[in-house]
């Protein structure tokens, strides 16, 4: 190669450098912001919009804001946000009315969860699937004992005291772990060759997907007690969880069905040619591939579910949003609702945005795998 280039007579002085207006910063600005009069107009309008919104927002959020202290007096001189409100209410915002002396139990459960996830990132660890199934069975038991107490010398904490971000995460976590297997079963049922099973699943999915989540929650809170024999009393949180899981299972079922439909017929035929039973072929051949195909859809359902946890306010649970805004009714903090909503919005945003980025990352990773 080197010898070849030497053979070609080349004089750098012959050609002119590209015009300055098409390279570097100037070129970029020209091409992306001022390529036509209309585009220039759009750019100016966008700049004006940014100037109208961004500086005041930043001033209020950061530069003029008070971050220290936890009393209303700390903000006496501020024109910006009073984050002292969040400091003052942090306990309730994160834990609800969970007894302060027992809050370490929630943190311990969180640490166990994080530690339990480490093996998933160890590349040499082979038995990930069986480990995941085991975790799915064992962890909820550990977490329940830690949260509710009443055993092993832990003080009992009734679920009506659960609240804040903790409660939101419990609802989302239970919803997610219950809705995925339930949704898979419903999706398989919908494609079953047994008419009775198929009709049942189709009816359930279409009925639940057709109504708003609020009516499902109303049903869970008002009608479930009617369905049970007198004297049997269901915990309010448990009722909400049942409604929630059934609702998201119906949505999950449709996502999974998409994956099942996208599987080539040959895969089903190959599985039965191997002599696998229905459950073997589903569990070993079809579902692993189908689920992998619809991971983005599954994560999207999770995001929707996480946002929908806010609706439990309507049946009176003290979730993160409720805990954050309820303090603004306090006479000392009147007029601080802006801070409350801004803080809640930021937390929800971080969770949902992280999940959606993760889903895009997975999608790219899987696509890369399929390309070669």
């Amino acid at each position: 190669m080197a010898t070849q280039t030497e053979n070609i007579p080349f004089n750098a002085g012959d050609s002119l450098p590209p015009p300055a207006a098409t390279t570097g910063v100037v070129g970029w600005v020209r091409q992306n912001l001022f390529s036509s009069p209309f585009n220039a107009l759009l750019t100016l309008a966008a700049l004006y919009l940014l100037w109208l919104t961004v500086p005041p927002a930043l001033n209020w959020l950061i530069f003029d804001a008070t971050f220290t202290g936890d009393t209303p007096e700390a903000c006496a001189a501020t024109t910006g946000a009073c984050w002292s409100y969040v400091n003052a209410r942090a306990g309730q915002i994160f834990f609800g009315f969970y007894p302060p002396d027992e809050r370490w139990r929630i943190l311990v459960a969180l640490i166990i969860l994080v530690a339990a996830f480490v093996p998933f990132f160890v590349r040499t660890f082979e038995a990930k699937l069986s480990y995941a199934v085991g975790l799915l069975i064992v962890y909820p038991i550990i977490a329940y004992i830690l949260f509710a107490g009443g055993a092993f010398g832990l003080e009992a904490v009734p679920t009506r005291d659960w609240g804040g971000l903790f409660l939101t995460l419990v609802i989302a976590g239970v919803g997610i772990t219950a809705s995925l297997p339930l949704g898979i079963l419903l999706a398989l049922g919908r494609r079953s060759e047994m008419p009775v099973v198929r009709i049942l699943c189709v009816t359930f999915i279409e009925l639940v997907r057709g109504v708003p989540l609020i009516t499902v929650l109303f049903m869970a809170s008002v009608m479930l007690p009617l369905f049970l024999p007198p004297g049997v009393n269901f915990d309010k949180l448990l009722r909400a969880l049942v409604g929630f899981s059934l609702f998201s299972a119906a949505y999950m079922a449709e996502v999974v069905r998409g994956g099942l439909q996208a599987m080539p017929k040959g895969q089903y035929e190959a599985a039965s040619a191997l002599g696998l039973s229905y459950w073997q072929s589903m569990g070993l051949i079809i579902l692993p591939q189908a689920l992998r195909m619809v991971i983005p859809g599954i994560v999207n359902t999770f995001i929707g579910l996480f946002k929908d946890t806010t609706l439990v306010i309507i049946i009176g649970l003290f979730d993160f949003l409720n805990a954050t805004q309820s303090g603004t009714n306090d006479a000392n903090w009147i007029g601080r609702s802006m801070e409350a909503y801004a803080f809640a919005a930021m937390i929800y945003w971080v969770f949902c945005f992280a999940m959606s980025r993760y889903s895009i990352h997975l999608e790219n990773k899987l696509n890369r795998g399929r390309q070669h």
Partner: protein
Amino acid sequence: MAVQREATTGQMPTKPAPWNDPRIRSLFIQAVTIVVIVGFIAYIAHNTASNLARQGIAGGFDFLNYTAGFGISFSLIPYSEVSTYGNALLTGLLNTFLVAICGIVLATIVGFVVGLARLSSNFLVAKLAYAYVEMLRNIPLLLQLIFWYVVVLSALPTPRESLSFLDAFFLNNRGLTVPRPILEDGIGFLVVGVVIAIAAVVFMTRWAKRRRDATGQPFPTVLASLAVLVLVPIAAFLVSGAPLEFEIPTASRFRLDGGLNLVPEFVALLFGLSLYTGAFIAEIVRAGILSVGKGQVEAASALGLKPGQTSRLVVIPQALRVIVPPLTSQYLNLTKNSSLAVAIGYPDLVSVGGTVLNQTGQAIEVVTIWMIVYVSLSLLTSLFMNWYNRKIALVER
């Protein structure tokens, strides 16, 4: 089957044990399912009946004729505290429809504008649209609704200092006041005019397509349809003596007189729903347009089509194929999400139903009404979607 097998193998196949015969096993599973479900329903029905009897609640829909005794802050039909529960629920249903229809129109506009902006070659505009989408769709709708209701609307000026638009629309912390339509006799002519115009457009579109298929002559269908749709009803309107008037709200010293006042709850719900759903529609629009291959556009310009023709005849029809099905489910989502009205006190079907449920204890009946309304809406939507899909599906040979 059995005979054939006998002939080829020459010996009777061993009859499988009953629990290994797939047909028998499937029948058995289905029978067990039916028994379990029927038993479960019977158990629930028994419990419900005895619970209701204990609480002294009579089943049935008779309660719809009883006096409701509670007020509703916003109503499209005459409603007062002496109206019946049936009237209250009807009021709620109409309120749901009103906010859903207005929301669908607004969200579509927002969604298309933002979706196209995300594809803009202008860096700033594309990034702003991206920020809009990522911000709005990652924050719970309920939080956004409460934000609009509590923070934004209460920061608006008092009725005295309303923000006004064209001196006919007034926005203040009591809501939005718009001209109130007053229907007079002869409004039927307008309806007839609209029906005639629609029929004419359908007929003309068919004729134009036949002619184009036969002769290759294009016909400005879109322009002509618009003209017919606008001119014919206007003609009917004028012929029948202009039977529609608007009562324009007027600002006096302390308040607004006349006009139709849309309560703050309605405005907050409408804003929240349309901006939130708009973010999702924007993504659908973007994906739809991106799904049309670049080669299509190049082929169109190679054939000599102008840019406008390219997008109207080549890009948009193919993009719509991808856009319409998810768009329809967003419309459905918006309608269902309008039930969050209960959190900010807009009297929609769920909110009014909740009050009725609390007052009468008729949980089963009220939930049944909710179910019937929302499920039939979604069935209608999926019927429409299937019809539209069949109509525009790619015909492959």
